[in-house]
Structure formats: C-alpha cells, structure tokens
C-alpha cells in the first residue's frame, strides 16, 4: 500500500526533522575549528597521534575483513550457525568500558605492555561484528550452487573459492574494509583503556577535553575526523554501487 501524497509528505517531514536533529551536532566543530588547523603540525604528540590513528585504521582494514570472511563461511558451513552468529556479534553488545577494562586487565595479568598491537587487538575485536555483517550480506547474494558446479568440474576447494566465490564477494570485502577503517578511526573509550603511553587522535581529543576542555585545535581535529569519515563513507558507497552491478549484470 502506498501512502497518499499528503501523508507521504508528512512522513518525510517527520523523518527530515529527526535527521536534522542527528546531523546538527556535525556543524559546531566546523564552525569553531577555523583557527585551529595551523597548530596541529607543530604539536609532536599530535603528529604521532595522527600517525597512530591512520596506521591503526589501515591495519584494522587489513586484518578484520579476512577474519569476518572466515566467520561468515563458518556460519554457512558449521552445524551451529546460531551460536557462531551470537559469538561473532557479541563485541557489538559489550559496552565499551567493559570491553576496555576486561582487555586491559587480561593483558596486565599476562604481563603484556600496552602498544600499538594491543590497541589493534581491541580495534579488530570492535570492528569484527560490523565487517561480519557486511560480508554476510555480500555472501547472501552469492548462490552456493556456483561452488558445487566448480567442484563437479573438478576444482579443488581453494581454487573454487579463489576463482568463483572471491571475485563475486570482493565488493563486500572492500566494503567491510572501509567500514572497519571508519569504525577504528572513530573509537575512543575502548582504546583509552589499553592505550598505555600511546595516543590516537580520538584519545588525544578525549584526554585533552578532560584536562583543559575544548579549544579551536580540538574542533579542527574533530572537523578533520568528520571529513575523513565522510570520505570513507563515499568509498563504501562506490563499492556498494559496484556490487549492485555484479548482482544484476
């Protein structure tokens, strides 16, 4: 049933108002960041933080999608799909403070000192459910009959995967990679509990806010992060458009 034009306009107006309410908070950082960009390069702590953030986003984008792919294949092939789903979605539901505290205590008891590797561990854990859902969605558009056909024609498992399935789900994996990078770039609370002496841009913003409050340079950093996130969303959408063509073509 399609709504009458007046009802439809009312619905879209209501949705528009809610969306305005959600997008409004993206404006102030841009308004107040004007004088803050110049100082970023002169602050060595901040230069390190930017490098760490970008490195972590890139590494997370490399590590998480293959793990998510294996998880999605496990849902399809193991006998306990519900249990696998629940376990792999669990990081999504554990509150950030609890995840950070648990990891910090665990690493401390094992005698592991905080480093980029420990932050990467937390980022991979936190991005895994997002990447997993994207890969699941991509694999759902793939008919396993193609794989059976490859087996019947004599292809070993690995070859069938590389030549038949992988090309078809590649856009999904790229989407999972950019989503992992976005989520990694925008993580604060979990990172702040395992960061040790290191900083990411997000933890720098958070600790500076707690110590001295907001400033133009923090707003400038936030604007840059918002810009980078939107750019990565654009990459994600381009990948999605390509996947649409694969399915219909």
């Amino acid at each position, binding site marked *: 049933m399609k709504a009458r034009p007046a009802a439809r306009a009312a619905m879209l107006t209501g949705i528009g108002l809610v969306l305005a309410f959600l997008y409004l*908070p993206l404006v102030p950082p841009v308004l107040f960041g004007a004088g803050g960009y110049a100082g970023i390069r002169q602050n060595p702590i901040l230069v390190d933080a930017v490098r760490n953030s970008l490195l972590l986003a890139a590494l997370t984008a490399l590590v998480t999608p293959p793990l998510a792919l294996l998880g999605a294949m496990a849902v399809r092939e193991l006998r306990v799909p*519900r249990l696998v*789903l629940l376990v792999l979605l669990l990081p999504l*539901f*554990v509150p950030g*403070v609890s995840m950070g505290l*648990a990891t910090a205590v665990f690493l401390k008891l094992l005698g592991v000192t905080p480093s980029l590797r420990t932050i990467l561990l937390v980022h991979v*854990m936190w991005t895994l459910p997002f990447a997993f859902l994207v890969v699941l969605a991509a694999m759902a558009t793939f008919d396993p009959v193609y794989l059976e056909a490859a087996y019947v024609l004599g292809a070993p498992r690995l070859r069938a995967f590389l030549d038949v399935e992988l090309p078809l789900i590649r856009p999904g994996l790229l989407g999972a990679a950019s989503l992992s990078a976005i989520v990694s770039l925008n993580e604060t609370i979990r990172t702040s509990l395992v960061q040790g002496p290191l900083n990411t841009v997000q933890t720098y913003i958070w600790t500076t806010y707690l110590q001295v409050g907001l400033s133009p340079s923090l707003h400038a950093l936030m604007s840059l992060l918002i810009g980078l996130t939107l750019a990565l969303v654009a990459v994600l959408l381009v990948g999605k458009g390509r996947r649409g063509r694969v399915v219909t073509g």
Partner: protein
Amino acid sequence: MRRFVPGRRALLLLPVAFVVVFLIAPLALTVAVSLWQRAGFWVKPALSLAAYEQFVSGARLAVLGRSLQAAAVATAIGLSIAYPIAYALARHLSAAATRTVLLLFTIPFLVNYIIRTFAWTWLLGRTGPVNSLVVGTGLADQPLDWLLFSDFAVYVGLVTSYMPLMVFPLWISLSGIEQRLVEASWLLGAGPWRTFWRVTVPLSIPGVFAAVVFGFVGSFGESAVPIILGGVGYQLMGNAITSALDVLNYPIAAAMSTAVVAVMLLFLACWYLAFDLRTFLGKILRWRF
C-alpha cells in the same frame, strides 16, 4: 556432500576462537578480579565480596539506579522515535526512499558519538542557539538552565547516540511481515488501529527486542555522555567505572563492570532463547542453512 578437512574446520573456527580468547575469557577474568583484593596499585587473588559490599552500600547503588532509569528513559524515547520511522519506511515509502533514509541514518552513527556529544554542550548551552531562540522568540525571559548539565541533556546525548542504531532492526522486522496477514485482519473487520496493535506490533516484537537491546545496553554502560553532558559529579555506571579506575580500584571497577555485563547477558540470553537470530537477519541471510 563436501567433506570436512580438519585444517579447514580450524580455520573456520579462528574468528570464534579470537572472540572467545580475547573477549569472553577477559570478561570472565573481570568477574574473578571483582572477587580479588586491592594490593598496592594492582590486585591479588582472593575470594572476597568486599567490592560488591562497597558497591551496594555506598553512593554507587544510587548510580546503578540512575543508570537503569536513564537507560530505560533513553530506550523508550528512542523506540518512540525509531518505530514510527521504521514503520513508515517498511509500509508507506518507496524502496528508493527507504534506501536513502536508511543511509542517512547510518552516516551520523559512524561519526564518533563523543564528537557529536561535544556539540550539544554548545547547542544547549546558555549562549547557544537553542537558548538564543527561546529568549529571542520570547518563550522565556532568560536562558533555560536545565538544558545543559542535567538529566535532560544526558537523555538528549543518549538518544542521539543510540537511536539511529535502533531504526535498523525495527525496519528489518517490520518489512519482513507478511502483508497478507494485515489484509486478512482488514477482511475480518478490524480497523487500521486494531490491526496495528493486534497484528503488526506482535509480529514486530523480535525487532523491538533487538532495538531495546541496542538502546538499553548501550545507554546503561555509557561513560562519555554523562561526563560531557551531565555536569560535575553526574555519574552513570560507565563513568563510575572509569573513575574507580582513575584511583586504581580494580576490584570495584570489575564488580561494576560485571553488573553491566550481566544485564547485557540477560538481554542477550532472552533474545537468543526467544527468537531465532537468523529470522531477525533474514533480510540479509537468504541462503539455506
């Protein structure tokens, strides 16, 4: 039938093992640490309920109560906004409009909610645009004080942080409802209102439950929003845990974190037992199991 090669099975179980070793085991360890004793800057193994006694006897019990209330209010507000939107998308708007709207809900969610929450301190502040508007239009003589550093501000922060995520499970379950059931209800003489409450709402319960899990668990464990928008001394479970960590009181931090995780597990257990996760994800999981 394909055969299982042991190495292949181990590979497929790798992600599950990753979560078990680096998340589930650490969470179990947190429960253990909550029973241990403080020793200098760290903890030593013991079997003591001291942390829990401290938890329920001091001001922290009030923090627990306030967190439960804040999470319940934020979830109820989020649901009352997200449900009509999901309903309109699933029933009344075209596929193209639905795709666009869902995308527009995803984008602000991807920007760190802490950055978005900072913005409210200006938007709701004494000299911010909301108060300028209120005073300028003569709705009030002077700026409203309760807009910022108050329960109201915290609810605004929690709702904007977690409501976008609630739209998705609601839309998934509402768009999965068989349209013929709704038509049958009309044919049998039920009006639109009655059909909505007796047919649509009951059939959308799995999505409602998923949305409640996202909203309630997220708000209940939230640590940044109360610090930014609650003002000095405003504590919910999340930032009470970080302030216990600031003074290196690991057992009490672990005990409070255990309480938060227990609430989450309770919700997840109900969800797992009552609903099939696969039917919830049915939209994206069309293959045969």
